[in-house]
């Protein structure tokens, strides 16, 4: 449902058509997975069905016909509600990383777990260096920096967890095999 809310947010500034929305999304959320056109139009159709956006006009300058959309009153309210709503802070631990470490310990023992952790740490650090390089490149936009910061923060959290987990591996091993 989050993509719909992002589109609502992008329409808050005024009417836009689908292609425009896709570009704005990819610009503003640079490190996110790019949006597919099909997904943009499908989401807009659903929002129109629910009365959150309405068609505001057609323009046909150079090329195919384009339909612009604008926020309805209901859409504006929905956006405001979403922005004030508190996201539940990670109610379940559901991460591939976490699952893998526990399973590696269960299935393969300490050696397998540490081998995996070593490789994972290298991958995390490499990704973090890439993101840092993006961030420190002269002329990096605020969007780039904010997105890189978000990703770096999460990678850092993972690394910290990895490090602490290693210290506990022996204990954990005892616990899961007993």
């Amino acid at each position, binding site marked *: 449902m989050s993509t719909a809310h992002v589109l609502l947010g992008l329409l808050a500034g005024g009417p836009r058509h689908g292609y425009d929305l896709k570009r704005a999304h990819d610009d503003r959320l640079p490190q996110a997975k790019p949006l597919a056109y099909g997904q943009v139009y499908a989401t807009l159709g659903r929002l129109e069905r629910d009365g959150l956006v309405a068609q505001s006009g057609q323009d046909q300058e150079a090329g195919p016909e384009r339909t612009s959309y604008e926020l309805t009153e209901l859409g504006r309210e929905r956006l405001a509600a979403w922005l004030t709503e508190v996201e539940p802070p990670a109610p379940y631990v559901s991460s591939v990383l976490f699952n893998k470490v526990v399973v590696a310990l269960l299935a393969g023992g300490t050696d397998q777990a540490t081998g995996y952790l*070593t490789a994972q*740490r*290298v991958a995390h*650090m490499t990704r973090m260096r890439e993101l840092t390089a993006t961030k*420190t490149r002269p002329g990096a936009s605020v969007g780039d920096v904010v997105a890189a910061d978000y990703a770096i923060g999460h990678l850092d959290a993972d690394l910290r967890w990895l490090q602490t987990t290693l210290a506990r591996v022996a204990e954990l091993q005892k616990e899961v095999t007993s």
Partner: protein
Amino acid sequence: MTGALLSGTGITKSYGATPALRGIDVTVGEGEIVAITGPSGCGKSTLLHCLAGILRADEGSVVYREQDLSLWSEASRSRLRRTEFGVLFQFGQLVPELTAAENVALPLLLAGSGRRDAREAALGWLARFGVADMADKRPPAMSGGQQQRCAAARALVTGPRVIFADEPTGALDQLSGEQVMTAMVQAVREQGSAVVLVTHEAPVAAYADREIVLRDGAIDPSGIGIVG
């Protein structure tokens, strides 16, 4: 490795009976940023001090541009630090009684530059780090982030070939820390200086090209504390 700017071979150092470093081999190439990481007490600061010639290793050698620093006198190493090296610590390296501009100009002044030239250069570097308006303030009147930017400006003012940074963001909040690191890394890349960066934080280590993890005074190849 050929073309190494700075290399340490078999560096061993003990404090009394406590071994801090047990035979470390490390090389830093021209213009390379190398992070030394590891948990508290792993010997990373000691390694930096040995490489910078502040401490003398018990065993092993530190070679800078094909010259063995362990054979140099304290005075010559001081001069080397002033001209070819820059140091940036967690805090406390500024002289509290001198203004920001004087602090930044200090290495130039000690090397015999005139006050006018030294001040000119210092002001340029302060502006680069975004603290030009602090030039005539003394460190106690500045925030931690501002002080650290001055310290970074001082580390760079002589156009050093190697910068030794020991937990440069350790006393700063995250945003100030990132601003200091970003400004420093950009300046260093432009100038082509190498950096030896000691930190225990992965996001700071990520500013480097390469990482060396220490554990209990030895290099940990896995980086996760499983040695051997």
